[in-house]
């Protein structure tokens, strides 16, 4: 019998999303590092222009979503491995979910207002 909490999607889906988000994060990071390197030395104007373009805003929004999803699955794996009490774990999972949702909302709102 599989007793998974409501916050668990199936393991295979987790596995897949964890890797898809990881691949996107890695590619975005390298691309961003190159763009930042080219934009050096950074001023407020050049930084704003770089982040303000529609392409960067869209890809950055996807980046923050990927980070949130990746972190949610990853920290959940840690919780499942180290926190034995089911109630405590469910509590911590809810805290994690709240933190990740708050982070995502904040990040997207920053990009939205650019």
């Amino acid at each position, binding site marked *: 019998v599989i007793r998974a909490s409501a916050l668990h999607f199936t393991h295979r889906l987790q596995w897949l999303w964890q890797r898809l988000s*990881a691949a996107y994060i*890695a590619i975005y*990071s390298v691309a961003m590092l190159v763009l930042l390197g080219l934009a050096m030395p950074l001023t*407020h104007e050049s930084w704003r222009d770089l982040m303000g373009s529609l392409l960067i805003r869209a890809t950055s929004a996807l980046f923050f979503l990927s980070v949130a999803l990746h972190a949610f699955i*990853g*920290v959940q794996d*840690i919780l499942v491995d180290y926190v034995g009490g089911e109630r405590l774990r469910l509590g911590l999972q809810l805290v994690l979910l709240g933190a990740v949702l708050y982070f995502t909302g*904040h990040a997207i709102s*920053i990009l939205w207002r650019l």
Partner: protein
Amino acid sequence: MQLEANRRPKYLGAKALLFDIRMPSPALVSILHRISGALLLLGFGLLLSPFERSLQSNEGFEAAAKLFEPKWVRALLLLLVWAYVHHILAGLRFLTIDVVGGVSLRSAKYSSVCVIVVSLAVTAYAGATLW
């Protein structure tokens, strides 16, 4: 029988985990993957508000830049750089193992030592650029 079972040493305390159990390099890469992942989540959370301020106004940009002037903040930033590089390299290693399937002990040792050494080297390079 029972008595004998009870007299067996237990290696589950923090001291045992830290000092007594010899960790082979693949195990070290694995636990560091977890630690760096947790650090990165905390780091992202902390960096979001300077990120926001730096985009809002010229003053905000200056203030965010000023935030990274103290040496200890740069040291923390460097820790995050290490976490990022280690997490990505260790992740790529796990992905490769997933795709390639069973790997030999030799290649497992070699690739795990590579992950540790390269991420430290990149961090050193980043540190030299930051200072």
